[in-house]
């Protein structure tokens, strides 16, 4: 445990978040499966959460006699909102699945774009 606190600093968290974000972005761009795209979106948002919590942990300013936890509050807001977004996304996917019997994005061809 001492090793962790002594050697892991802010930059490690930021690199982890940047990597996760990139993986998520690649997943959104390259996946054909809608469920996977939604999962990759969540990955991107969670990368942002890591950023916020890490920044808050290392840089929290004082406000009067206590620390400001706005970054952690922000992370909770992101969790909540991303859950709502995933719910809407899955509902639309179900509607499309009923029609096409597939979640492959390439098969959704009603719009020619």
């Amino acid at each position, binding site marked *: 445990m001492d090793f962790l606190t002594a050697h892991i600093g802010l930059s490690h968290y930021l690199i982890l978040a940047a990597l996760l974000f990139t993986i998520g972005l690649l997943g959104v761009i390259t996946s054909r499966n809608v469920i996977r795209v939604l999962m990759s979106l969540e990955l991107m948002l969670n990368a942002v959460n890591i950023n916020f919590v890490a920044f808050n942990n290392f840089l929290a300013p004082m406000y009067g006699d206590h620390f400001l936890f706005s970054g952690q509050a922000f992370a909770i807001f992101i969790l909540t909102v991303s859950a709502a977004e995933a719910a809407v996304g899955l509902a639309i996917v179900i509607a499309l699945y009923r029609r096409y019997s597939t979640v492959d994005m390439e098969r959704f061809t009603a*719009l020619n774009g």
Partner: protein
Amino acid sequence: MTDWIQAFLHTPFMRFIVVENIHYLLPELILLVTISIGLFQASGRSKQSHDDAWSTALWGSFFAIAVAKVLAFHLHVDPETLTLYSTPVNLPVFYDVIRIDLLYSIVRTFVLGGTFLVLLFSRAYLEKHSSTAAEFPMLVLTASLGASLLAGANDLIMLFVALETLGIPSFILAGYFRNDAKCAEAGLKYLLYGGASTAVILFGISLIYGLSGGYTQFPMITAKLQLLETTLSGGFQPVLMIAMVMLLGGIAFKLSAAPFHQWTPDVYEGAPLPVTAYLSVVSKVAAFALLIRVCANFLFALSPADAGTGIAVLSGLFVVLSVLSMILGNVAALRQNNIKRMMAYSTVAHVGYLLLGFVVFREAALASVLYYLLAYVYMNLGAFAVITLISLQTGRDDIQAYSGLIRKKPFYTLALSIFLLSLAGIPITAGFFAKFFLFQSVIQADSNTLWLIVLALLNSTVSLYYYLNVIRVMVVNEPSDMVQSLTRRVDAPQTLPILLSVVACLIGTLVLGFYADPAMMYTRGAMAQLNQPDPTSIQALNQEIHMATMAGDSADVLALPAVVHQR
């Protein structure tokens, strides 16, 4: 009776509301109450309860606009000094999460007005598609709540929550007819692109949060970033650069600026027509208000326009977005056969013109951007209202269905022609003055942008072709069988609200044209307020620096100048 009111006004609760400026959020509170009541009514099964919910939504949004108008005109602009009198500037609400200023008041009024007009012309359309449920207006109102709060956001968390309050109902609305393949696909596409762009914006925001040292309020962040810039001689930080590029890129996605516009034509074609109108007007206005705030707080405050390579790079980013949007939008609109797709590409082109105002990094140009937005609300919504009317009667969206419409429906033809001419920028309409003011202010701020203005003018000429083409089809072509079968008699009472919104937009388009100068005065006043130094946050920052210096704990804080000066 009056004693009773006096006593009520002097209760601690009312005092709290007035002291904390909460009464300035009355339009949003009315919307919130309307949504709550309407959802209760809409949960009933009978047709009567859905009718009730619809009228609740219409009345609620009407009252919200009325109150917003009163609050907006309560703020008076002094024409000489462009400052406000009778009401203080920059009122903080809810611990400074929202700031009440003129930009917020103006944008809020127009967002709510656009919402009311969209609701007016959506009911008949939904009933035609055998969808009588009253969730639709509630979703629209929820999205508008987000849109109007987005214009006043003064805090990163508020910004994000408002953005998603606008976004999530919009995703549902875009896929509202879930049994229709096109519509559900439009919803999915909008959700995926919208979600990804939100994630990108958030990543940029998280970096800004880190750079500011853990603050979420805009004035604090601005002050912190200014500090960073003055102390680190490199000027513009590379991390800030990355953050700004991600933030601006994400917003460009929301604005459907090229090259991030691919989702626009598909979503606009697939979504129900009123939703398309909503997305292309209300969402765009809110997103531009956000962009104006972000630029004013994080960019313009940092460097004067003549210094800093980072600023030059970001200005170049706006140039690229603007030029690509204008050219791609106009060229692609030329060969569209479906009027919804044509309007989608026309939106992309207009976003291109609007982004020109951000190239020069001056508030004066932003005032013209705001005026352009207001004109755009009326002319685009009006065009969509007429398109909805025609679509209701012919059931088709392709331009050929409009052949010879003038023989049967002269008023529709006249109204659509005026809106399209205004979009093309023909004089005496609001669209002309919008373009005129925008181009003039950009070139006044920086004469190196001459080539951009020439390009924009050439593009408006190109746009004239496809707008006039619709008018030509309506006026010159022989009527098609479908148009032939339309009757000339007065419309059914169902379409009366739609006609009402067409007339309102016509009046708006012409009045904003005739009274362009007073309107510009208001928008200039709004921009003059934007970047005023904020005494409270500067004081707080100085306090913090002072304490850190006393404690002597951090070397880099010691290196900062002892006092932050006001700009």
